[in-house]
């Protein structure tokens, strides 16, 4: 009797697992950001409706230890089938054996080049193969506080359009106390925020330089264009013009939110935060140009297929479908609306050019460059240190800039030598 009962239970278990097996289940990982999580959940629902035989499990992790979690889960075989990763990590993931190339029959070169901005198809390529697809991209723009413009006697609807104007406006917008301490910043100077991107991809190019070789293996910003003048320009704003400094009110976002900074350079993802602040009237414009040169920094996260998915052809097929679905124009539209990140498809992007908020970011994408970060925190640290050396230690911009290039070259060499 007892034995019979055990058999019955076993049979039951077997049967239920059988019915589950009829549905292909794939796991999707991304880092935790509230609106992103909600939007992906919404998209998964839609996807499952279109593909009733596929089930997607969605898992999120905090940004800070995302890599760590991935690294510890995939070898253990409990990792994702589809993963959302920063495009700069692609080489590491590929050479560690975690990512497989996107199947060419589903993702042709033509498809990739026509449906996505050119910096995207360049960013997802490694050794001649393509590895991941983004839903959305990000770029930078200049945010300004209309009320503070008015108080300084400036036209609240006319943000600066050139670097010269930017400096001039910033000076007029800065307020000091009796002791000469800044109590209101003209322009935020925070390399640890978006400032390091502005230096690296925008200012360097505007001063006639190129940040890296096209294979991203060699630092060029010290050898091309005006070299250390870039750093001098940036640090002069802090030490000579005194329009702001790193750490004012802790960081640039806090300062701008508290209406203690008149202008800041930040990303499209900040729109949601700023919209929530009562009484803050802000505008957003394209980054100021210099000598007629416009430049911008773009970055993106992309969805790739892991080796986990190759264990089962059905899983692989489901993963391909899911990635394509996530990068469809419909998903991109929803993403823009919910998350505030920009469509990765240039045709779709054009539809929003006149948008008072997103327009500035989207127009910026046309001339944007994506940095191929191999270790974002280390590379950011290099720029932070370069600025600190000049501002806090009084080291000349020439020396600080050269040392930054050497330091960053070391980071790059370290990375590329580890993946041979």
């Amino acid at each position, binding site marked *: 009797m007892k034995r019979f009962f055990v058999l019955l239970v076993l049979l039951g278990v077997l049967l239920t697992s059988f019915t589950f097996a009829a549905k292909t289940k794939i796991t999707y990982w991304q880092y935790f950001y509230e609106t992103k999580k909600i939007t992906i959940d919404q998209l998964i629902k839609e996807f499952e409706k279109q593909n009733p035989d596929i089930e997607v499990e969605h898992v999120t992790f*905090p940004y800070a230890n995302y890599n760590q979690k991935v690294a510890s889960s995939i070898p253990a075989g409990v990792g994702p089938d589809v993963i959302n990763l920063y495009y700069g990590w692609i080489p590491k993931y590929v050479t560690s054996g975690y990512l497989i190339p996107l199947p060419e029959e589903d993702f042709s070169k033509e498809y990739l080049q026509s449906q996505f901005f050119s910096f995207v198809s360049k960013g997802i390529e490694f050794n001649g193969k393509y590895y991941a697809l983004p839903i959305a991209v990000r770029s930078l723009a200049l945010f300004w506080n209309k009320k503070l413009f008015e108080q300084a006697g400036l036209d609240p609807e006319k943000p600066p359009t050139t670097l010269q104007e930017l400096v001039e406006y910033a000076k007029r917008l800065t307020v000091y106390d009796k002791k000469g301490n800044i109590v209101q910043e003209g322009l935020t100077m925070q390399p640890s925020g978006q400032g390091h991107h502005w230096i690296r991809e925008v200012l360097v190019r505007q001063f006639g330089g190129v940040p890296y070789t096209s294979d991203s293996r060699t630092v060029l910003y010290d050898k091309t264009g005006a070299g250390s003048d870039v750093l001098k320009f940036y640090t002069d704003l802090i030490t000579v013009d005194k329009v702001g400094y790193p750490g004012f009110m802790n960081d640039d*976002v806090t300062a701008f939110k508290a209406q203690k900074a008149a202008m800041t350079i930040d990303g499209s993802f900040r729109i949601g935060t700023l919209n929530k602040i009562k009484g803050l009237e802000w505008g957003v414009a394209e980054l100021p140009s210099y000598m007629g040169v416009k430049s911008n920094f773009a970055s993106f996260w992309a969805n790739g297929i892991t080796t986990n998915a190759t264990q089962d052809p059905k899983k692989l097929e489901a993963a391909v479908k899911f990635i394509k679905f996530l990068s469809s124009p419909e998903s991109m539209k929803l993403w823009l609306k919910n998350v505030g990140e920009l469509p990765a498809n240039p045709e779709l992007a054009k539809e929003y050019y006149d948008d008072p908020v997103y327009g500035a970011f989207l127009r910026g994408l046309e001339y944007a460059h994506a940095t191929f970060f191999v270790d974002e925190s280390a590379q950011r640290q290099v720029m932070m240190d370069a600025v600190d050396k000049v501002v806090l230690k009084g080291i000349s911009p020439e020396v600080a800039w050269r040392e930054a290039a050497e330091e960053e070259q070391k980071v790059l060499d370290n990375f590329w030598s580890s993946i041979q």
Partner: protein
Amino acid sequence: MIKRDRLLTVSAYIFLTIFAVLMVFPFIWMFSSSFKDSGEIYEFNLFPKYPTLYNYQYIFNYSLFPRWFLNSLLIAMITTISVLFFDSLIGYTLAKFDFPGRKLIFILILSTLMIPTEMLVIPWYIMVRNLHWMGTYWSIMFPGMISAFGIFLMKQFMSTIPNDLIDAARIDGVSEFGIYFKIVLPLVKPALATLAIFNFIGNWNAFLWPLIVTSSPEMYTLPVGVAYFSSENSMSWELIMTGAAVSTVPLIIFFLIFQKQIVKGITMSGLKG
């Protein structure tokens, strides 16, 4: 001479009071800031002109603070119970049983006090990963389930229990575990209380290991939650101070209730260590 003594006493009180203000002021500033709204937070008045509970409402309704609070409570409680049980059992065994290897075992356990946690976190992390403990409460708790310091403390206390008492129970036919549980434990209650309080505070405040091993925000402990919450770029100082206050208040209450044991515990750790 007497006059001078009085003068000294008065100046001693003044000095101690000034210091007391220095010690307490950061707490006052933290609480004061947590009741200010975003418009007033950058002013320096000690008492908010328009005190608000909005920050607390925000913390409890729109963030994971309640969950982190429960996580910390759960983890601190379970580890404390485990430490009390095992440490007293080992302390008792080492104090009252004579067996080959006793000294060696005691020295081995004591020597682990010399190993800094920082040296162990990487292997622990690899253990957690290989054993698939990622994302469980167990992964946060397991390194603290037994404490070498507690064993030392317990052994010292157990040594003072008269052997006759234990032998008498043995003759009465009480089981070995029964002797430990029913006779020995009640005798060392004060020491147990001290150990419990210290262990609870230690686990409530632990940062490095939970920071490393917790993966999803749902699993954060309170300190890790406060750190992440605060370092997110778009945070506001009034909310950060509220978060800090929320993680501090339970301990202050705890402290006021158990102050005697806490002072005694610190003293014990100092004089016998």
